[in-house]
């Protein structure tokens, strides 16, 4: 597999050798000299007419989600896209990626995902949660802000699918790519707009593990109340299900060539003539040497503070039916214990326990409540569950077996923490 990929890379390089060499000369000059060239000066009309927009295709050699997100961010912040558009293509090892303003505890089961050895990453662009693995190809279209055009980019992808494999696809009003006559999505899209640069990135489902996808994006009702952006679940399919010859390596070439042969403003197909005027393909090794500051971006993107702490404020509300044996004599009907946690910036801000009258007893709940309120200030994570368990263990060693009622309350707390 790796050999075949390497051979394909070589084939791409061979065919556009002149372009790659030209690309090496100035697009990949040592980053220090590039840094000087990064002005945020706007393109005047005179400059535009003098120098037509040229295109490059960059292919990242990393499969680490944090490195690739850092590379994307680095290019957005530092690269000069004056008269130069770039398509960055990248793939990742299995992971879950949430949108900038999303809640990871809503969108996925964080404990399960961690147990499967997958990372949860938060990207800088908006949109919903996606599952990545090596059967998924990510495309990032970089331009200056005023040249940003999402629909044009999707049109290029659609044409590539048709030209290479005869697959007909449609761009929906929501600007997703859907296979014609199936209404199944093969691509999800998101974007980031700033000044002077902007980017639009999308996924392409070539040969993704659909079982792993469904398991990692499975949402239960966890009683979370939040104003974070919610994902819109859509039925998906792999491109290899439509045509078994569709492979990621070939997709790299198909989309890359289509991008280079398409005129950026008019979307006209310029064919080989236009390709010869572009800067061609370039393999990218995302290291701090080539991209100074990349390691710092990668550290920020992989930090707990960014991935979980950036979550908008939310509340977790859960009710538990109190077993009859714990209710006082004469208490009738169904009574519920209500647990409510307020989480801000990923830290448990407040814990509220609403005890029904039947649960209140002469021995009170002081010790247990202390244990519960010790959750305050803890990050909303497995760590908090562990510290709660330890506290419970300490209590039962000190006071012998916990009273049945207390045990029940503690079990409820444990369930709330573990369910997310």
């Amino acid at each position, binding site marked *: 597999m790796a050999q075949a990929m390497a051979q394909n890379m070589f084939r791409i390089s061979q065919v556009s050798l002149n372009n790659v060499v030209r690309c090496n000369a100035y697009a990949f000059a040592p980053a220090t000299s590039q840094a000087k060239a990064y002005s945020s000066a*706007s393109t005047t009309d005179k400059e535009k007419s003098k120098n037509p927009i040229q295109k490059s295709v960059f292919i990242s050699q990393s499969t680490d989600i944090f490195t690739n997100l850092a590379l994307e961010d680095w290019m957005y912040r530092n690269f000069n896209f004056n008269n130069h558009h770039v398509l960055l293509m990248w793939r990742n090892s299995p992971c879950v990626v949430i*949108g*900038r*303003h999303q809640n990871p505890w809503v969108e996925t089961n964080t404990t399960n995902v961690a147990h499967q050895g997958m990372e949860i990453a938060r990207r*800088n*662009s*908006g*949109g919903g949660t996606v599952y990545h693995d090596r059967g998924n190809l990510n495309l990032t279209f970089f331009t200056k*802000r*005023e040249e*940003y055009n*999402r629909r044009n980019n999707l049109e290029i992808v659609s044409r590539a699918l048709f030209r290479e494999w005869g697959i007909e696809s449609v761009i929906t009003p*929501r*600007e997703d790519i859907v296979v014609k006559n199936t209404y199944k999505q093969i691509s999800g899209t*998101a*974007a*980031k*707009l*700033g*000044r002077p640069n*902007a980017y*639009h990135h999308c996924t392409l489902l070539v040969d993704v593990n659909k079982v792993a996808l469904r398991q990692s994006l499975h949402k239960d009702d966890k009683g979370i109340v939040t*104003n*974070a*952006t919610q994902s819109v679940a859509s039925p998906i399919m792999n491109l290899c299900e439509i045509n078994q010859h569709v492979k990621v390596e070939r997709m790299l070439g198909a989309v890359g060539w289509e991008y280079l042969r398409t005129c950026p403003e008019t979307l006209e197909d310029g064919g080989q003539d236009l390709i010869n005027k572009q800067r061609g393909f370039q393999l990218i090794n995302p290291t701090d040497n080539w991209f100074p500051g990349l390691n710092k971006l990668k550290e920020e993107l992989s930090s707990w503070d960014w991935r979980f702490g950036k979550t*908008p404020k939310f509340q977790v509300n859960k009710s538990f039916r109190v077993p009859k044996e714990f209710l006082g004599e004469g208490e009738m009907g169904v009574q519920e214990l209500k647990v409510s946690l307020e989480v801000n910036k990923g830290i448990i801000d407040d814990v509220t326990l609403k005890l029904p009258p039947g649960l209140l007893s002469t021995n009170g709940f002081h010790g247990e409540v202390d244990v519960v309120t010790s959750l305050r200030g803890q990050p909303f994570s497995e760590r908090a569950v562990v510290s709660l368990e330890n506290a419970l263990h300490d209590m039962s060693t000190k006071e012998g077996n916990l009273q049945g009622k207390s045990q029940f309350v503690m079990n409820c707390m444990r369930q709330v923490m573990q369910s997310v």
Partner: protein
Amino acid sequence: MRSLRGLHYSSVARISRCFVARWQGNVIRYISISINCLSGSRRFTDKHEWISVNENIGTVGISHHAQKSLGEIDFAQLPDVGAVLEKEVTCGALESVKAASEIFCPVSGKVIDKNASVEQTPRLINSSCYDKGWLFKVELTKPDELNRLMTESEYETFIKSGVYK
């Protein structure tokens, strides 16, 4: 012109007061408007933010052009109170179906308030971008920076030129 007949009494009173004010206070009203322009008039950036300053406190928002091009805003991430910002540095983001767009601070200063209603109901930015959809307030540290921003009429010309989207 609506007939006054049949309107509730208080509405009638309001309308008639309005007429009286306009008739008698024309000159005075004109002067008071001018004073407002000097202290609280809006200035614009080329990134489509506006700022309106009153006693060194600037209220920041995005322009009608910006909210229209963003589409319906689903999430507003505003700077925290107490944050110290530099001019033209990213200080937040607005997310719509189309994209996550950065918010840039028009001037240097310290954030003293943010609009919790907008955090709760981001669509306020679309429906009332100059009024209820304000984003945050900042205490200016370099008031001279205001002079480099566009006036309302300069901004209108800027938009019409179509140079920037």
